[in-house]
C-alpha cells in the first residue's frame, strides 16, 4: 500500500537546505585542516595563551543563581507550545476557544503571581 506521497519529495527543500548547510561547514573545516600548517608548541596548546596559569578542572561546580528561573522556564515553555495550535485555529474556535484559553492562562497567571510574590525570580 502506498501510504504517503513519497517522503523524499515532501521534504526535499528541507533536506537540500540541511545538506548544503552541513556540507558547507564540513568542507570548510576539512579544507582548513588539510591546508593550514600545524606547528604545535607548549605555549600554543595552553588553554589561555597569555594570562593566568590554568588550575584545576574546567568542570567545577558553580552556583547557578537562576536555577529556579530555568525550572520555571520549562513549565512556561510547554505552556507556550499549547498556544501554537490554538493560534492557528483562532478564527475557527471563536469565542469558545478564547474563553477556553483564558481560563487556561488564568491559572498560569495565578502561578506567575505566586512566583513573583514569593520572590522566586530574585537572584541575590
Amino acid at each position: 500500500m502506498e501510504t504517503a506521497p513519497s517522503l523524499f519529495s515532501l521534504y526535499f527543500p528541507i533536506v537540500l537546505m540541511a545538506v548544503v548547510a552541513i556540507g558547507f561547514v564540513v568542507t570548510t573545516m576539512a579544507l582548513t585542516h588539510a591546508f593550514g600548517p600545524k606547528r604545535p608548541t607548549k605555549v600554543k596548546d595552553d588553554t589561555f595563551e597569555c594570562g593566568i596559569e590554568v588550575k584545576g578542572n574546567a568542570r567545577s561546580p558553580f552556583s547557578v543563581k537562576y536555577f529556579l528561573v530555568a525550572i520555571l522556564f520549562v513549565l512556561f515553555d510547554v505552556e507556550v507550545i499549547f498556544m501554537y495550535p490554538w493560534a492557528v485555529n483562532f478564527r475557527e474556535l471563536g469565542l469558545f476557544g478564547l474563553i477556553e484559553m483564558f481560563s487556561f492562562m488564568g491559572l498560569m497567571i495565578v502561578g506567575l503571581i505566586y512566583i513573583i510574590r514569593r520572590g522566586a525570580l530574585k537572584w541575590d
Partner: protein
Amino acid sequence: MQLFHNITVNHYLVLSAVLFGLGAFGVLFRRNAIIMFMCIELMLNAVNLTLVAFSKMWNHTDGQVFVFFIMVVAAAEVAVGLAILMMLYRNLHTTDTNVLNKLKF
C-alpha cells in the same frame, strides 16, 4: 500492517520496547539519581513513540494529542523532581540513591 515501505507497526513496537527496556534497565543499573531521572525520560519517550505509531496506523489524531499531554506531565515531573534533587544535594551532598534511602533525614 505497513506504515510505509516494508516497515510495519510491529517494527515501531519492537523499537519502543527496546528503548523502554533500556530505560528500565538503566533505572535499576545506575545509582545516580540524575541518570535514573534521565532513564525515566527515555521510558516516557518510548511510550510516546508507540502512541505516534498507532496514531499513524489508525490515521487518527488522538494518539498525537496523548503525546502532547505526556510532554506536559514530563515537564511538570522534571521541574518538581529536579527541585527535590537540589534540596537533597544541599542537605546531604550526594545524589547516590544508596545514601538517599530514608524519607526523613
